[in-house]
């Protein structure tokens, strides 16, 4: 089922949580709402579920206005951040809950309910825990039970609020992969909220980057990472270096060096003012002397060779701190040491100029 949000706004007192959001989600997509706390992502998710009523705008499910439809009639599955499993019920009873509250006439009999519950528990690989209580389960297990519970009533849409936030790093990674496989199998329209950009990049078909109640960019992982539409998105996704420079006569200067703008995506072209260039650490090369292409002088401060790449910290000639990631072979070839004077060369097409 597709979801459409039109002109959705919501405020709590003086705080504007969501500001005029328009969003369309296709059937079967797995979409991430990505942002910091206070960006409005959880509020938006709850509005879709019907757990909050928007001040303005409509929510449409498959083209039909759902605004008047109550939470219980919307057929959305909602997985809460802290699972909200019913403490006094066993795992089985939790998963069966949605089926047992169906009005008597439409309700399946107990045998059918039991079959469905076990089917779902097998799907989440927890059938052997059916008689345990939530307090006896680990965090990852509780999460899967919560998921099984929402799937029991065959929702049209699956909404997850920071589903893996409360888990250890390793468990989080396992569950991420597991959720991805589950979605590939079931193909249910899913929206999940996260502040973890790695998670969003890894899981989602499309990412909605939110900030202070607005959408900054919507796109696939590839798009938002490699083609961020503004500084916020660039900064939020992945590591980035900021080079502070100035604009004179339409040319950008970092320190004494003029920047060749043909390699950069420039947000605007003013004649004077300040500029900030964004460069990812792994897209800077370190060379010992300038060799014709665009380079900037810098001095090595510290080197961290532990990890898949070598992280080098430098001070640029104009004062900014710079982080560069190079592979180990390059590092060996350069014989870098703290204090060495080197040159930085950004690779093609990856600079981003944003004048402020």
């Amino acid at each position: 089922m597709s979801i459409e949000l039109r002109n959705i706004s919501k405020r709590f007192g003086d705080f504007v949580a969501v500001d005029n959001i328009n969003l369309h989600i296709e059937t079967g997509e797995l979409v991430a709402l990505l942002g910091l706390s206070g960006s409005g992502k959880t509020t938006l998710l709850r509005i879709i579920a019907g757990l909050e009523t928007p001040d303005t705008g409509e929510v449409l499910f498959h083209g039909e206005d759902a605004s008047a439809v109550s939470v219980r009639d919307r057929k959305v599955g909602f997985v809460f951040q802290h699972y909200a499993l019913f403490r006094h019920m066993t795992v089985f009873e939790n998963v069966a809950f949605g089926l047992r509250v169906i009005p008597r006439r439409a309700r399946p009999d107990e045998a059918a309910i039991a079959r469905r519950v076990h089917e779902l528990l097998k799907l989440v690989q927890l059938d052997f825990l059916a008689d345990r209580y939530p307090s006896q389960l680990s965090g990852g297990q509780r999460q899967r039970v919560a998921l099984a519970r929402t799937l029991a009533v065959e929702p049209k849409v699956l909404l997850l609020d920071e589903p893996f936030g409360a888990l250890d790093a390793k468990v989080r990674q396992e569950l991420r992969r597991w959720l991805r496989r589950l979605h590939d199998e079931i193909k249910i329209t899913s929206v999940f909220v996260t502040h973890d950009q790695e998670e969003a990049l890894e899981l989602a078909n499309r990412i909605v980057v939110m900030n202070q109640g607005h959408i900054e960019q919507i796109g696939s992982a590839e798009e938002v990472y490699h083609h961020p539409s503004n500084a916020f998105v660039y900064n939020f996704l992945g590591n980035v270096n900021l080079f502070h420079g100035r604009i004179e006569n339409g040319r950008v200067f970092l320190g004494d060096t003029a920047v060749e703008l043909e390699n950069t995506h420039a947000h605007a072209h003013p004649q004077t003012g300040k500029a900030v260039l964004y460069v990812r650490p792994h897209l800077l090369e370190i060379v010992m002397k300038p060799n014709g292409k665009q380079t900037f002088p810098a001095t090595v401060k510290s080197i961290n060779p532990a990890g898949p790449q070598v992280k080098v910290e430098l001070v640029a000639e104009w004062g900014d701190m710079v982080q560069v990631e190079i592979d180990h072979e390059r590092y060996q070839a350069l014989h870098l040491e703290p204090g060495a004077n080197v040159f930085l060369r950004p690779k093609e097409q990856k600079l981003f100029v944003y004048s402020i």
Partner: protein
Amino acid sequence: MGGQAQREPKRPGTADPPMVRIALITIALLFLALFLFIPVIAVFAEALAKGIGAYFAAIADPEARAAIRLTLMTAAIAVPLNVTFGIAASWAIARFDFPGKQTLLTLIDIPFSVSPVISGMLFVLLLGVRAPLGGFLAAHGIKVIFAEPGIVLATIFVTFPLAARELIPIMQAVGSEEEEAAIVLGAGGWQMFFRVTIPNVKWGLLYGLVLCNARAMGEFGAVSVVSGHIRGHTNTMPLYVEILYNDYQFAAAFAVSSLLTLLAIATLVAKRFLERRVVPAKQEQDDLAVKVAA
């Protein structure tokens, strides 16, 4: 996660249908009107039934004044004693480990679960003239039962746990780091106590004091057993109310009752005021403890 003191308005998933809401609120209000508000109004209405002049005459009556004096004196003795006990007990329980702590807590709660009449009876059995101890005292001219000392003792018994029950959780929640810091800095025991401990528990202390006082001034059943109802001598205000009532001096009975009702209302207001201080103090200490532990 968890408790939200201010419910966010309009969370549709948790809202009750309007009819249900109205019905429940109405039932609640009717029930409370019947059992709370009508009685309170009735006290004052009946007290003034014979006019303001009679009201003040009843209160100024010498026997009434004697009753007021005895009530105040009883509270003035019982409350400080029990509050001191509360401080001592909470210090011992919250700051140290020793066997039998749970038993001690249960024992402290005993007066709570004993009927007031039985509470009074205990002292009659112990100190009445027919009891060995009582007989011994009587022989030396010390009257306890059917005299003021008996009233004070019975009051101490029934109000015994009140201050301790408030102070023990507070002392536990406040934690001992500050006191340890004071010791390490060279403070003596009493200095640490007055400069560090007491300020940290002061709201709980006041709360326990208010509760203890209300009960001490208002106790009826236990005091009734030990007092002998000797007019002008062994009547506290609650007892005096009974005597006036049994004498069919209704307006006067309610006049004295109105004073006690005013005291009760003042107690409730003080309680509410202090509750607000006590809870944040506990919460603050919990948060600090979490930060320290983390």
